[in-house]
């Protein structure tokens, strides 16, 4: 930012540039794209969790009019892609378009029918019969970890990766503790449940021998690189485009077999090939998350100070190690973030990620942090109760204090400055904590099961090249590139490797570029989601886009502004330092000389003879810059919830929910609030409603939206969000990533609130979702235990 320039657009509630098309039904999601001669795919999927495939009988299909062919793994020679990892002892698994000889989870695709319409393709798919030789179903991760029956025969065991963390002296900490609290925590499986189901359209151009894959993906750059390898094609001949994408939340951030499949088919058949998941397929095969069992114990001194923490973390990562994040992603993050935003020097954790005959696990908003926050925040409340300390006061005593940054946690993560204590105080002020407690007490005295809960957390966002979302994963995602260019008409285009899927990056990144250049925000066209538009890209995930793409936008915007001013200075016979740009007009201070960007553009590109030769080498109004924050930023928040439980039905109602967060400088406050709201509601879903359920044979019982219960507007209260809005120190622009925070704090805050509401029965919530059924059981046991 120019020293004397005040940002006009950064920080303001600019209405989104994406909205007009999305509001009028003119968006272009993958399934909306209709190319001539497109063929459609329907998949035959395994109904066994673990079995060898003996025969696939397609004889009834062959004659069906409109069917072009049926394909199985034998029809393709592409080699399996492995997500590699440098973690010691890690065992990788291969990803193929179709199951090869064996199925490892219910829903794994075995055969693909290609037909003129999806209707015909499904007709044909229903006529295909598969003969299986069942293998033992390894559904319980503890059993799978110990079993000699291997999901992947080349492995030594079903443990895909394990690791121990240790820092300080945990044994001594526990020996000296006044209070020790422990529990076995269970965070049940979830699915991201974007409203748009996954959809892929591959278009292979026979003449150019080049593939374009339209994919509802968050990571077009990752998919492009992976497909180029799998298809053995040069990168310049593989293009992955993520057009409008209907939500991702991590479920669209990995490589899927169906992406490989449609690409292979289109190349084979020379026609566009489309596959769109239906919701049942989505519930079976989109990557799932949050499936952890965590046995943890916290040691605390008589003043409530945290002394030590130890944990055993068992992650159920499903049948395959997801690309590119690997199966280590979530379990390792649970361990990494378990010490939380607190002063805690002594920490010990053992993490095991086990393969089971279930849907592969992958990223979901918050990744390992929601489970970590749930566990630690529950333990802190348990300790506070034992010491008769107010939960807020206990956190106040233990949060890393402002003067202690940078702070290295027990897991080795370093928190740089962030408003941990400020968020706690702001949240308390926001609900008027004493009045909040008084309301709770009055309600309790009247016999109502009313409770309040607090949760504080911190996370790393906008991570740069020195950090990794998952240790040892095969690609480094620490950099983002921006190209800003002005053409002969004076129009501004900014191109990034990110892939917006709801976060409004077409607007927020335009705000940054517009402020740097001095143009109106709707004059900046943001290009994203296209692997061919940039030399290299990954996409949008892990709360990185504002920090990394925003930083790169500042740098390239500044560079182009300098070039504009250099050209304009020459044209106006003025000094570049005396020029301002506002609303696309360059003016010389103290004179009435002006130029429009269009005039500069035309001069530079179409009247270049006006400029001396030695100026022209650098004269194009274009700059590409990359930004690597190296480490990234710390983002933090405190969530406060009030719940009421019906003492007869055990249904939990969230009465109030407030967040105070530090997400650095806000680019667009409206968009930030929207992200927090969305995360909170997914967090409420995780706390109260959502659960992927498998039976002991690995059959997915939560097979429709009637069974997998996501909250509607009626199940959630008004949401209140307060911001610190102070620039982060370590990143260009002062932004912090903030897209995931809502899901991190909400389950923990609600678990604490429910526990508070049930405190008269001494019930501790150690399992989420806290469904009415579970609360019924806990209450019944507690009451029967008393009699």
């Amino acid at each position, binding site marked *: 930012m120019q020293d004397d320039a005040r940002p006009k657009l950064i920080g303001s509630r600019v209405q989104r540039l994406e909205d007009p098309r999305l509001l009028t039904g003119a968006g272009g999601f993958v399934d909306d794209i209709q190319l001539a001669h497109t063929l459609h795919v329907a998949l035959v999927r395994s109904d066994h969790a673990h079995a060898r495939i003996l025969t696939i009988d397609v004889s009834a299909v062959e004659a069906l009019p409109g069917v072009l062919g049926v394909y199985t793994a034998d029809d393709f020679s592409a080699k399996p892609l492995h997500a590699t990892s440098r973690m010691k002892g890690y065992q990788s698994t291969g990803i193929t378009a179709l199951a090869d000889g064996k199925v490892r989870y219910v829903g794994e695709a075995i055969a693909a029918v290609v037909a003129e319409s999806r209707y015909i393709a499904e007709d044909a798919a*229903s006529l295909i019969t598969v003969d299986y030789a069942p293998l033992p179903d390894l559904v319980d991760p503890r059993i799978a970890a110990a079993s000699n029956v291997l999901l992947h025969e080349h492995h030594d065991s079903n443990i895909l990766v394990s690791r121990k963390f240790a820092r300080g002296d945990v044994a001594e900490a526990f020996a000296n503790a006044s209070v020790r609290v422990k529990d076995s925590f269970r965070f049940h499986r979830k699915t991201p449940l974007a409203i748009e189901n996954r959809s892929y359209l591959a278009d292979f151009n026979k003449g150019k021998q080049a593939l374009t894959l339209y994919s509802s993906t968050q990571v077009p750059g990752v998919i492009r690189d992976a497909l180029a390898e799998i298809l053995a094609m040069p990168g310049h001949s593989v293009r992955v485009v993520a057009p409008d994408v209907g939500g991702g939340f991590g479920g669209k951030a990995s490589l899927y077999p169906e992406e490989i499949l449609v690409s292979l088919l289109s190349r084979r058949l020379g026609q566009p090939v489309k596959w769109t998941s239906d919701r049942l397929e989505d519930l079976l095969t989109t990557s799932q998350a949050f499936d952890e069992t965590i046995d943890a114990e916290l040691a605390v001194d008589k003043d409530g100070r945290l002394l030590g923490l130890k944990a055993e973390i068992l992650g159920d990562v499903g049948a395959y190690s997801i690309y590119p994040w690997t199966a280590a992603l979530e379990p390792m993050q649970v361990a990494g973030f378990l010490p939380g935003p607190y002063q805690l020097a002594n920490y010990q954790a053992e993490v095991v990620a086990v393969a089971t005959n279930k849907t592969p696990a992958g990223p979901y908003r918050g990744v390992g942090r929601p489970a970590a926050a749930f566990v630690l925040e529950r333990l802190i409340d348990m300790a506070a109760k034992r010491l008769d300390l107010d939960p807020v006061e206990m956190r106040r005593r233990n949060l890393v204090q402002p003067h202690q940054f940078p702070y290295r946690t027990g897991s080795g993560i370093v928190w740089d400055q962030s408003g941990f204590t400020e968020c706690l105080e702001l949240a308390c002020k926001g609900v008027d904590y004493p009045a909040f407690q008084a309301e709770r007490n009055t309600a309790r005295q009247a016999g109502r099961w009313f409770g309040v809960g607090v949760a504080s957390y911190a996370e790393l966002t906008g991570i740069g090249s020195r950090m990794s979302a998952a240790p040892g994963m095969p690609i480094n995602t620490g950099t983002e590139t921006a190209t800003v260019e002005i053409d002969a008409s004076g129009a501004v285009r900014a191109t990034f490797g990110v892939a917006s899927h709801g976060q409004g990056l077409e607007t927020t990144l335009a705000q940054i570029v517009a402020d740097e250049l001095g143009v109106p925000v709707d004059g900046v066209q943001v290009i994203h989601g296209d692997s061919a538009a940039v030399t290299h890209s990954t996409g949008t995930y892990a709360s990185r886009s504002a920090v990394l793409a925003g930083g790169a936008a500042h740098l390239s915007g500044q560079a182009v502004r300098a070039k504009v001013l250099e050209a304009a200075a020459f044209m106006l016979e003025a000094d570049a330092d005396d020029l301002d740009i506002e609303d696309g007009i360059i003016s010389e201070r103290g004179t009435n000389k002006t130029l429009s960007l269009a005039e500069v553009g035309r001069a530079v590109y179409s009247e270049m003879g006006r400029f001396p030769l030695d100026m022209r080498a650098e004269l194009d109004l274009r700059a590409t810059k990359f930004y690597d924050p190296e480490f990234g930023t710390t983002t933090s928040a405190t969530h406060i919830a009030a719940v009421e439980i019906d003492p007869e*039905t055990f249904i939990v109602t969230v009465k109030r929910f407030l967040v105070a967060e530090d997400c650095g400088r806000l680019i667009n406050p409206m968009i930030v609030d929207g992200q927090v709201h969305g995360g909170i509601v997914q967090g409420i879903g995780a706390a109260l*409603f959502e659960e992927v359920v498998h039976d002991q044979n690995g059959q997915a019982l939560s097979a429709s939206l009637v*069974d997998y219960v996501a*909250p509607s507007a009626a199940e959630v209260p008004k949401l209140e969000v307060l911001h610190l809005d102070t620039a982060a120190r370590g990143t260009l622009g002062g932004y912090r990533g903030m897209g995931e925070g809502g899901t991190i704090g909400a389950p923990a805050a609600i678990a604490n609130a429910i526990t508070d509401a049930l405190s008269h029965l001494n019930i501790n919530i150690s399992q989420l979702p806290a*469904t009415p*059924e579970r609360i019924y059981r806990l209450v*019944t046991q507690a009451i029967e235990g008393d009699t």
Partner: protein
Amino acid sequence: MPMLNFRLLDPALLVDISRLPDLAQITASGRGITVGAGVCHHALMRSPELAERLPIINHTMQYVAHMAIRNRGTIGGSLAHGDPAAELPLLAVLLDADIHITGPAGDRTARAEDFFLAPLTTDLSEDEILTAVTFPNLAAGFGWGFEEIARRTGDFALAGAGAVLTLHHGVIADVRLAMMGVDETPRRLPAIEAMLLGRAWDAGVRASAVRQVREQVNPMSDLQASADYRRHLAGVVAGRALDTAWAKGHMP
């Protein structure tokens, strides 16, 4: 339709009866109110005839799914589908409705209490359709109550209860109690009805009724709720439905 979309049904012939005008009438008579099978839930909710004589029906329709479903789902469809956790089968049983059926063998009428045989199984033969439902008038001054518990607004009930009663000299002179979602079909609970006759709905009677409801029902376990929890809820919804009916029965 979901069953069709899931390819669980594969009919050779599908006949759309939604536009037959004869099926779309609501007629009030001396006997009661006859509702054509094609009347949609939204129309039930807004029906002035029902609001005047059987407001429990108008009230209960708000629990059926969501507006977009209520605009197209019909009473005939709901009854013929026979979901044990659905509101209209419960109301038919509670209100002792007559279900009018027609087929190649002619017209017949089945009583609601005989119509629901098992989950998703009714007395309708393969070649019959349901044409109308008659809800008989209730005694003047009746009180009514309906209560259902679901995970979310509009979801299928985990348990539900409907009650209607009339009072005489401060005690229950006549009462009906029916339950949904806690057995294979919606059903009345005659043993509890008998116990309540001549009693006032006081704390002791309430506790006894709730306990007996729990003993009487035979709920199933599924993903959303265990049989034990449903059994527990059965007592809750029955108690609350009767609370409301009792209070309304006192109103002039």
